[in-house]
């Protein structure tokens, strides 16, 4: 590995970098190697109730009735929670930053929108009793046609409470970027190159499954031991859902047995806390491995069309992108992910004509949410695959094609922000050096700081 080059951007650095480029021990590593690190599940309380969910066996259906009679007869069952028990049943995680409408029920009322959706929660003395009872709850469904394809969902009958099968961005059915005139660009281009890129949902599969234990305290508060990656998001959403002041809830956490974005949704905590409030006993709600794989939000599947107008010498003069993010049944973090995807287009290249439509679409699939660079990662896969396609088509070197189109300081980006502090040219040059590749002299001399070359 080449040492980090601290001379670059020297004038923008105010302090010496003492950590970047160095190896620094994690503060918690000693606890990890001795097994002493305390994960949420390591804190246990006597008299704890175990919560197991009755989950939808349908992709899309009306709930005609829920029969809990047989379940309540299982020895050890204490209570079954339904939507009627939830003080404020409708929410959306990002309402804390002004995103709306509330599109997700904590527990569904009259319909389920994806297979595995939680319907009602069984509280019992042992996990076995809770599981057994959950199996005995009979849900009467009336199937509705599901939609699994993002483009089909855009035009099919709306199935969401608020009317559209897509998120509405400031009155538009997508996030949009308009810069220059792409149609004119395509007309002037030597070649028009169009491809479609697609990804599947990706599950984080953390080694520790999602879970929490909610414990009622003597002072009227509830303490929630959780492995959430988002303690404050969870706290505030819980307060809104449960209709209690924030200071009635205390979250203990921060130790996460693998998250990768998979533990930022607020799903298990509100129901466990509600169970604790209603029974005045500690309640533990932990996903089994199967639940983790099926119902925890994955990275969204995306479908991305890229159409480029390209000159013979490799300059891209127009880029049109139509991008679909499959949010699954509920919004969660996908509306934000879609905005990030739009913000990331058309990639780190200076292109005079850009047109982007980025749709956040609802389907009857498992709701997707955050995962390492969500909104950006799959977009990058599409953009950089497209760059390779262009290079191949023109029989150009892929690095040189990127250098030719790389944004540099002073360029205007499609979002109408001036580029400042670009380093793409230098990064590609360093990559060439490290892989022993000879760039043509014109590209070896290039710099992000000037438009020459």
């Amino acid at each position, binding site marked *: 590995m080449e040492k980090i080059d601290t001379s670059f951007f020297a004038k923008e650095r105010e302090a010496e970098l003492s950590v970047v480029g160095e190896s620094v*021990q994690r503060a918690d*590593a000693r606890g990890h*190697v001795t097994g002493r690190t305390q994960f949420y599940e390591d804190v246990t309380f006597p008299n704890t109730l175990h919560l197991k969910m009755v989950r939808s066996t349908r992709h899309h259906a009306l709930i005609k009735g829920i029969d809990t009679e047989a379940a309540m007869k299982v020895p050890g069952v204490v209570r079954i929670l339904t939507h009627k028990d939830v003080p404020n049943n409708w929410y959306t995680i990002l309402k804390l930053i002004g995103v709306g409408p509330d599109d997700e029920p904590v527990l569904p009322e009259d319909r389920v929108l994806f297979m595995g959706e939680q319907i009602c929660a069984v509280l019992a003395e042992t996990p076995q009793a809770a599981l057994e009872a959950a199996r005995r709850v009979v849900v009467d469904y009336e199937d509705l046609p599901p939609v699994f394809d993002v483009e089909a969902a855009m035009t099919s009958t709306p199935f969401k409470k608020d009317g559209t099968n897509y998120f509405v961005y400031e009155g538009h059915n997508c996030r949009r970027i308009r810069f220059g005139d792409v149609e004119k660009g395509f007309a002037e281009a030597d070649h028009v190159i169009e491809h479609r890129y697609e990804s599947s949902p990706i599950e984080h599969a953390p*080694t520790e499954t999602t879970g929490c234990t909610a414990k009622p305290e003597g002072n009227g508060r509830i303490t929630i031991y959780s492995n959430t990656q988002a303690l404050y998001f969870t706290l505030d959403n819980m307060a809104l859902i449960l209709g209690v002041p924030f200071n009635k809830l205390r979250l203990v956490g921060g130790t996460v047995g*693998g998250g990768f974005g998979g533990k930022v949704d607020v799903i298990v905590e509100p129901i466990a806390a509600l169970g604790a409030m209603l029974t005045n006993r500690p309640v533990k709600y932990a996903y089994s*491995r199967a639940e983790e794989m099926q119902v925890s939000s994955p990275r969204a599947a995306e479908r991305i069309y890229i159409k480029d107008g390209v000159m013979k010498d490799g300059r891209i003069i127009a880029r049109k992108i139509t991008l679909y993010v499959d949010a699954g049944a509920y919004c969660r973090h996908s509306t934000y992910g879609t905005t990030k995807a739009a913000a990331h287009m058309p990639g780190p290249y200076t292109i005079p004509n850009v047109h982007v439509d980025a749709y956040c679409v609802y389907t009857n699939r498992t709701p997707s949410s955050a995962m390492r660079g969500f909104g950006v990662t799959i977009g990058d896969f599409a953009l950089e695959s497209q760059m390779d396609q262009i290079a191949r088509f023109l029989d150009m070197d892929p690095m040189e094609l990127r250098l030719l189109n790389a944004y540099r300081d002073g360029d205007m980006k499609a979002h109408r922000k001036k580029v400042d502090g670009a380093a793409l040219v230098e990064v590609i040059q360093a990559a060439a050096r490290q892989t022993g590749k000879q760039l043509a002299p014109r590209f070896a001399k290039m710099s992000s700081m000037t438009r020459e070359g």
Partner: protein
Amino acid sequence: MKHSVVSLTINGAERQMLVAPGSTLIDVLRESQGLTGTRRGCEQGACGTCTVLVDGKTAMSCMLPVETIEGAHVETIEGLTPPQGLHPIQEAFLQGFATQCGFCTSGMIMVAAALLAKNPNPSREDVVRAISGNICRCTGYEAIIDAILDAAVRIRSAAHAEAA
């Protein structure tokens, strides 16, 4: 179904416990013995996170009905950790950045302990084979393999120093 009494030697101490039918070793370790260093990852024998040593051999404690191992010697990460300082395998994991979230770490270290007890000078392939039942979702396996090889060196040189 009735509870039964099971005796085990856990980390050198003899223990008798009342167990519910079908209880697994991990239930007993975590819930009645308070040994929470053994982690529960999948409860279906798929991830190796819950690995402990039973009579010196690795075992997935989530898959082992405790009634079937009456009288066995069980060793967990708590037993491996010396009262002061760290075991050489722990030292190697720490120095080698072989842990991130730490959830798989106990299982990895117990597998390493069993391997190095049997084979003090393992090849890289031996290590790969030994940890092939253990999943780590964070660190990647290279650092873990390197740490186990480094631990082998540490243990051999300590033994050498003692002999000299």
